[in-house]
């Protein structure tokens, strides 16, 4: 729970845990639970989020293979690490350095997990199927940066590596790639994206297309049903130029929070159309990455600072001279400036963006 139950009690919010909704009947305004109980409603809001994408590779059901989504996953991973580390210490008197963890997926989940694990001093290997990490979300310069830092921190990153199967007898022992290369593994963590939880809505006849389809008021194709967060496919007037068919699905905390407010406003008969510039953050080692905007569709990247040798820089993404996004590593000031540049629609000459002698605050004048 994000907040203690008492907080909800105080605001007259009934929170029912461990209850699963299995069927929605929009015509009857009724929701059926797994227990058979039927709940009627005046308004319904889908906040079902997303679940970890599972890959059907042979051996992925072996003990010691985890996805990373719930607190139970975290507990399971911690427990297994604990057991293996103690086991190794007993057998070889070597340090825990010989426990091997293989991470499938070089996105944020994979890299953040790798960073956390290196703190525990275990061997970490990341297997990424594309030719660079964070390929989906950043420019090559940023991928290059993260590959360098992870290597400096002792992580083995293998790109162009597609996992074909996992081997072991009951427990995982090896992860193998299509190339034939294999890696010892005491523990495997798979982080290859998420899938929006749309099934309940879809079965009930709501419009679904890479998420539950909503408009800028977070309203679905059924007038008294709304949706917010990771489960939605929504329009964003500010990003119209970057978006393929005018809508997007975002995996982001700020989006969930903002869209939820729009749902509440809509239900209360008020109008609070949702259209904010996305932003994200990711913490790895001593790297604070803060991203303002969405870089999709960029035609130009300019770098402020030294991404090849330092741990502090900004990658500004532009399209036709207009700022789309900024990936800021240990540059909190530039990040907050970028957010304002975007929300206020301020245009800045790229030559200034990369000039370290200029205080970024001046871009806002």
């Amino acid at each position: 729970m994000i907040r203690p139950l008492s907080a909800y009690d105080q605001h007259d919010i009934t929170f029912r845990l461990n209850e699963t909704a299995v069927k929605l009947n929009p015509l009857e305004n009724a929701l059926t639970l797994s227990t058979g109980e039927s709940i009627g409603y005046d308004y319904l809001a889908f906040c079902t989020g997303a679940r970890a994408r599972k890959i059907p590779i042979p051996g992925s059901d072996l003990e010691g293979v985890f996805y990373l989504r719930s607190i139970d996953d975290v507990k399971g991973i911690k427990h297994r690490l604990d057991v293996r580390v103690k086991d190794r210490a007993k057998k070889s008197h070597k340090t825990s350095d010989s426990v091997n963890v293989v991470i499938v997926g070089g996105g944020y989940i994979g890299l953040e997990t790798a960073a956390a694990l290196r703190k525990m001093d275990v061997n970490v290997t990341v297997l990424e199927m594309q030719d660079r990490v964070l390929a989906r979300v950043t420019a090559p310069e940023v991928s290059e940066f993260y590959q360098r830092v992870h290597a400096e921190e002792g992580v083995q990153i293998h790109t162009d590596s597609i996992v074909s199967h996992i081997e072991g007898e009951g427990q995982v022992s090896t992860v193998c790639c299509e190339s034939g290369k294999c890696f010892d593994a005491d523990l495997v963590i798979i982080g290859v994206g998420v899938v929006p939880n749309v099934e309940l809505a879809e079965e009930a006849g709501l419009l679904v297309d890479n998420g539950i389809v909503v408009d800028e008021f977070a309203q679905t194709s059924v007038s008294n049903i709304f949706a917010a967060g990771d489960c939605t496919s929504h329009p964003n007037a500010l990003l119209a130029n970057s978006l393929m068919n005018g809508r997007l699905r975002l995996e982001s905390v700020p989006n969930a929070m903002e869209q939820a407010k729009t749902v509440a406003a809509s239900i209360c008969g008020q109008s609070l159309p949702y259209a904010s510039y996305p932003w994200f953050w990711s913490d790895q080692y001593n790297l604070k990455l803060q991203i303002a905007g969405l870089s999709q569709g960029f035609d130009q990247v300019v770098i402020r600072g030294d991404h090849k040798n330092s741990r502090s820089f900004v990658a500004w993404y532009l399209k036709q001279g207009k700022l789309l996004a900024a990936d800021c590593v240990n540059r909190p000031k530039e990040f907050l400036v970028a957010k304002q540049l975007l929300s206020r629609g301020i245009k800045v000459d790229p030559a200034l963006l990369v000039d370290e002698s200029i205080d970024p605050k001046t871009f806002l004048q």
Partner: protein
Amino acid sequence: MPIIHYIEADGAEYEADVVVGSTVMQGAVDNMIDGILAECGGSCSCATCHCYVDEAWFEKVGEAGGTEKIMLEMAIDPQPTSRLSCQIKVTEELDGLVVRLPESQY
């Protein structure tokens, strides 16, 4: 358990029990106090948990440093006693702490 006082921009006052080791931000979020957004959940990455520490308490709470200080420079309407509430750890010493919340976190 320490009590933290939150005063919204419109004057509304709230009192919350916040356990030692938690943060002033978490106390606000747990008690659904609107003036604190805390979009990044406390990782000093968003500057939407901005608060003004009551002058009488500022010495005990202390100044911001490091990343927090840089973030505060760009927060909405920063003042000399501004802090990011996710970086204020609650201790027995801070029992009775008063913080004021800005009109907006954006």
